[in-house]
């Protein structure tokens, strides 16, 4: 219940935050909403020496359109995303995903950047940003770089964020044309984390055949991943039951599905297939 001692700094700017983080690469951790880090600290599984609180950098919390992109600041809370009228209009996957995270208290405080940077294998955001093929903007002592979401999630709780780097922004190409989104989740009855979470970003051709599908899966593997084989199998099809049914059998291709007390590997993989199918069908039904 009680974390080990640490020092706390609340820089006013991102540059200061980067500098502070780099002042102690081994001991410093970024604190945003704290809803991944603080529970680990209370169990003393994480014992950072210094917390650099970036939640006070007001300029890091935003949702805005810029050209053909949607820009989301890293410390934007789940609730801000859930309740954004703009996003409900232009990218409904994000509010839908946000709504399924944890509970209202977690959503009020937890941030999208924190969740992505933590890369919990059952976190919800990773699936959504994968499905949307987002770019993640990282800032470090050497300046900024942009990483595709697909390349960002490396392994269990491990991302491409290098020591000393901070996730600053999530950039998403504004969905256009005939698109439909859906997020389907089986929450663990105790933790609320995704036993399986499926984010679908579907774009149709004028003839309503599948132009492209972005499918992000969480909860199944050691990290969230894009179900590329499913995406490929769907492309060009009319998304009829047979095509979707056949495509979703590939959802666990190349993955060694997680097992825990609630769901074994094969059941989890089965759930991933069922919910991927349901999410695709829901997304398709929502296409204007």
């Amino acid at each position, binding site marked *: 219940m009680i974390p*080990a001692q640490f020092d706390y700094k609340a820089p006013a700017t991102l540059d200061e935050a980067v500098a502070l983080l780099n002042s102690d690469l081994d001991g410093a951790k970024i604190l945003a909403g704290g809803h991944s880090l603080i529970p680990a600290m209370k169990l003393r599984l994480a014992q950072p020496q210094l917390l650099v609180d970036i939640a006070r950098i007001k300029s890091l919390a935003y949702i805005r359109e810029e050209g053909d992109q949607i820009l989301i600041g890293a410390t934007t809370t789940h609730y801000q995303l859930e309740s954004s009228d703009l996003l409900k209009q232009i990218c409904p996957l994000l509010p839908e995903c946000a709504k399924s995270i944890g509970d209202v208290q977690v959503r009020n405080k937890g941030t999208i950047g924190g969740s992505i940077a933590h890369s919990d294998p059952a976190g919800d955001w990773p699936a959504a940003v994968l499905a949307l093929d987002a770019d993640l903007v990282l800032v470090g002592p050497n300046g900024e770089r942009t990483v595709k979401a697909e390349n960002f999630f490396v392994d269990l709780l491990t991302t491409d964020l290098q020591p000393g780097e901070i996730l600053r922004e999530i950039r998403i190409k504004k969905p256009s044309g005939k698109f439909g989104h859906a997020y389907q989740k089986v929450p663990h*009855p*105790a*933790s609320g984390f995704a036993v399986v979470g499926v984010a679908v970003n579907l774009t149709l051709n004028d003839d309503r055949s599948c132009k492209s599908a972005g499918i992000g899966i969480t909860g199944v593997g050691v990290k969230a991943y894009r179900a590329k084989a499913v995406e490929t199998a769907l492309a060009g099809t009319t998304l009829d039951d047979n095509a979707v049914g056949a495509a979703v059998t590939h959802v666990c291709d190349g993955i060694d599905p997680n097992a825990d007390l609630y769901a074994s590997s*094969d059941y989890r993989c089965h759930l991933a297939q*069922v919910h991927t199918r349901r999410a695709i069908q829901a997304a398709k039904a929502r296409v204007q």
Partner: protein
Amino acid sequence: MTNNYVGKRVKRTEDPRLIRGLAHYVDDISLPNTLHVAFVRSIYAHAKINSIDTSAALAAPGVVAVYTGKDVADKIGPVPCAGALPDLKVPDHRVLAKDKVYFVGHPIAAVVAKDRYAARDAVDLVMVDYEDLPVVTDVEAAAAGGPVIHDSFSDNIAYRLTSGEGDIDAAFAAADRTVKQRILHRRLAPIAMEPRGVLARYFPGEEELTIWSSTQIPHLMRTQVALMIGIPENKLRVITPEVGGGFGSKLNVYSEEALLGWISMQLGKPVKWIETRRENIQATIHGRGQVGDIEVAIKNDGTVLGLRYSVFADMGAYHQLLTPAIPTLTGLMLSGAYRIPAIQMNITACFTNKMATDAYRGAGRPEATYVVERAFDLVAAELGMDPAEVRRKNFPAASEFPFHTATGLDYDSGDYETALNKAQEIAGYAALREEQKKAREEGRLIGIGVSTYVEICALGPSQAMPAGGWESATVRIEPTGKVTVLTGASPHGQGQETSFAQIAADELGVKINDVTVIHGDTGVVQYGIGTFGSRATAVGGTAVFVAIQKLKEKAHKIATHMLQADATRVSFEGGKYSLQAAAAASATGTSEPVVPVAEAPAAALPEPQTEGKTSLTIQDIALAAHIAKELPPDTEPGLSATYFFEPKNFTFPFGTHICVVEVDRETGDIKFLRYVAVDDCGKVINPMLVDGQVHGGIVQSIGQAMFEEVVYDEQGQLVTGTLMDYAVPRASHVPNFELDRTETPSPVNPLGVKGVGEAGTIGATPAIVGAIVDALAPFGVKHLDMPIKPENVWRIINGH
């Protein structure tokens, strides 16, 4: 008696402080200079302690002391076990482990520091050198041999017991068929929302120790802790402030309670320990933990001739207060709501490298009801009968009560068929079966589960209890007319402050706001037993009721004297002692109403005015009794009465629960469609509180049936160590409940009440499991063990 309150939906008098955050639980009490205690607990399930190095911890900032098992071994007596079974093995259970640890969470050292942060930090600095030993977690493996846990015993068998009446062999010999099933009752964690907590303060001058503890049994704890730490019982005061739920987990005497008291005596300062949720799951008792085989002898027409249940009961590493007694309660209730001529229960109770099991809401009875009800479902399936009809066939008739069972009990009163009929009617049972049939044709999987339960409540006659089964009450009317009720049945959420005030207000004819119910302070309240076993109202409430009758006898005497009338002419009605009409006329010639004196605002106590009056409120009499100028000869001043109620029997509430579920063929998800419960808890004091008890109990059953399980791995590691993994039901997990009642008064107590605290956890699991199994009947399933998770269902449907 006027029924202004009893039987009515009265809002709780305890709520205003609770909803405003102004109530005080143990951790909300702060005393100056309080030291905080944190525990070093075993991370091994079974290990030898080679050494404990406390030097770094002692040197840490803010640390005042560190105590280990060696420091306290000859200072604090063993943790008590109240089980009195023949040949029971009772391990020497010390408050801190000395040479060996026997389960994960076993306390090894207590660190005392200036604040909770410093105490927690120092826990990491205590170095324990363990040498791990072979572990036994499976109860059958423990019975079969396995590593012996306690050196003082030759095996892991705590006791064996066979009980029951009737010729069981003859019953099976006469049977047309038998059905059998192995049934698991997994370990459950009670998870009271307030974890345990202890605050202790010793005054060296007065040699008085006060312990605030989140417990269900302040007096029993006082006696036991006094014995453990060697302080005279009358120098120890136990206070249970607000208690945030118990469910049996606080019906115990724990190491920490004695140890904190002892530490306070050593250091002369207040010391506090508040359990973390991880400690709560590791080292507060668990419930259930049985593996049993049920076998039923039946006739082809559905008549049950005999029932045999052989069970391995998992005690855990040590006995806590009632650990060995729990399976015996299972044995008592194996007749369920049925006429079963022969019953046999065989218990093999074993030690394992796990936390002790003990009373968790229902305490042994849910296990009994569950196996009996599952068996009746199996019988129905075997014979192709409707499960409700098999049950109906074996009910004793309402006219047969008191009904003697082959488990040796005499059920007080009952009308099982009426409850079943009512539940079936509310559920629309016949239509549901039709709907189910139609749904099956469409490929949908709907299941209907029926449970007709009986429970044993109002624990109980002292003859059948380890430490007294009575309950106490003192009722006092203060000079200002305020009524004080002191009850030994200290509650932890049940609402006795309201329900007992309802009883008192009606019996005394006063307003409920004039009644204050005091509990949970051994310095103030006469000795009592506590709240558990659905006993508070039936035993404690009765004590209040009878104490009031005693008080009224005296008040009547005083009234008669004050009204200068013949005793037979003074009657009590609506809070007033009045002369009967004829007598009244002759006494004063008037019958004007009298303003109650006690309500008049007064700086000093008013003098009772009786001249010319035909009636007196009981509050007038209280004042007179205290002023004591106008009392009949040989009457003690004051107006109070104490009563210790000893029930002659248990009570036996009953009811029918019907659950309807639909399972998702693809995912195995289980969705509730309906939940109907008709409970009969005898007379009802406050229907709102009864509904609340039933709701809560059913939801704990939903937890047990679908989510909850304390899991230890083969090495005895507790893998469901937090609420991240141990699933307590949430709002979205539960259906809307349709409740109703029948009312069959109990003849055991004058209130006619039976008790309802555990009905939900006893009646509901068989209905829920029955419904899920019924939904899967097309796949040939006859039984599934709890918790039934979607994966289990999916495997059945898909033949995995």
